[in-house]
């Protein structure tokens, strides 16, 4: 179990939050998807990074302010390395040290 610091409400228990899986997966634009092959669609829809290490992921404060945000979290230690707003790019994290 871990504490997640909601950017809007502060540190709260994990089970107040819902998990939104991998962050920064960009939906192709209508112009792009006219051109895309089925294999490229599969990459977008289904294929995931699933790293053993730092994972950039989305969480939602379901039992609080109900707002979405991004988290960088280590998938072995569960250490939360960054919390940042939706729409912001993933921060640089020295994955070697972690």
């Amino acid at each position, binding site marked *: *179990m871990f504490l997640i610091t909601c950017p809007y409400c502060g540190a709260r228990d994990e089970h107040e939050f819902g998990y939104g899986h991998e962050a920064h997966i960009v939906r192709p634009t209508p112009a792009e998807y006219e051109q895309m092959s089925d294999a490229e*669609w*599969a990459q977008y829809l289904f*294929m*995931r990074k699933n790293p*053993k290490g730092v994972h950039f992921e989305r969480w939602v404060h379901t039992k609080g302010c109900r707002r979405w945000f991004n988290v960088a979290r280590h998938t072995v230690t569960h250490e939360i390395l960054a919390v940042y707003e939706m729409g912001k790019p993933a921060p640089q994290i020295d994955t070697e040290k972690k």
Partner: protein
Amino acid sequence: MKQRYSIFSLVRNALNYHADWQEAWRSPDPKPAYDVIIIGGGGHGLATAYYLAKEHGITNVAILEKGWIGGGNTGRNTTIVRSNYLWDESAHLYEHALKLWEGLSQDLNYNVMFSQRGIMNLAHTVHDMQALRRRVYAIQLNGIDSEILTPAQIKELVPMLDCSPNARYPIMGASFQRRGGTARHDAVAWGYARGADERGVDIIQNCEVTGFKIVNGTVQGVETTRGFIGAKKVGVVVAGHSGVIAGMAGFRLPLESHPLQALVSEPIKPILDTVVMSPQVHVYVSQSDKGELVLGAGIDAFNSYAQAGSPPIVENQLNALCDLFPAFSRLRMMRQWGGIVDTCPDASPIIGKTPVQNLFINCGWGTGGFKATPGSGNVFAHTIARGEPHPLAVPFALERFTTGYLIDEHGAAGVAH
């Protein structure tokens, strides 16, 4: 040749204070190269090697295991075996496995303690009952045993269950597969290991694969913590670490790794002689031969490789257990542990070729692959040996995420491992 295990060998060895048992498998050093390397010494990897040797005559095989055999999900699971899946593709695959389970102890000359004690799925709402009927009839149409029980029949089979209409989640009925049940997880790994070793397969433990040698899109061998080992073909069967291994080979999978945990209680007198699952109230439970209740529920929602489940899941499943079986509220839980399961978007496995030539993968079994161990190894061995998928494995190819031919078994998985 391995000594045969039998009642007589047991008695003979008992007279020697069990000092003279032959080793069940060797621990050889890796050779420079093999015809086939299997990465992952879980039940599925060991079964694959066993059937490669037994059914395809391919014996120049090594199993590379980073820890000890059976130390992954194979040795951490709650051992529920069943074949009552909704879709034809899954029904045929899991039934193939169940048929192999039925003769496995004899085939391996190793008691895997397969116990067909039946498996019961409870329904608590009208909607549950409708979904359950649809499933049971579909399963029957595939020629697989499955039946619907009334609350009175349930009560007769499991007297401890709170079947009163006043229960918080009243029980309206259940599906029942009598041929389902449980098996001894370690014995499955050890039995396959012994059988594979007997046929010449090298089982190499404490040997982690750290990379691949791929030339012109074709795999040539693997880098390991014990050096480079060449291979004509490589089969990957690493469950929760499938994404990590795929990353080493330069492709991605539609998988996420999540913790799934289990608990056992202190041992008690025989009280439950079948497996009871409730997908709604969210717990499942059986009683081991030692008398412990073995129970589990769902995964942690977040990606993790930590091999430990989080406390809220424990709390929810214990609440559910006490709702269904009020008498169990007196029990103490003895141990709790987690494994890392590879969940797939359609809750079905991936078996077959990869973008790399001669590199095959068998993964995505998620929360429910123990039951498939013999069938999975059997069809994967065929797939590796022939270079083409076994007929039962065809629908489970990685390409289904491109074609859109998903095999959505969420209803069957979820809690129902």
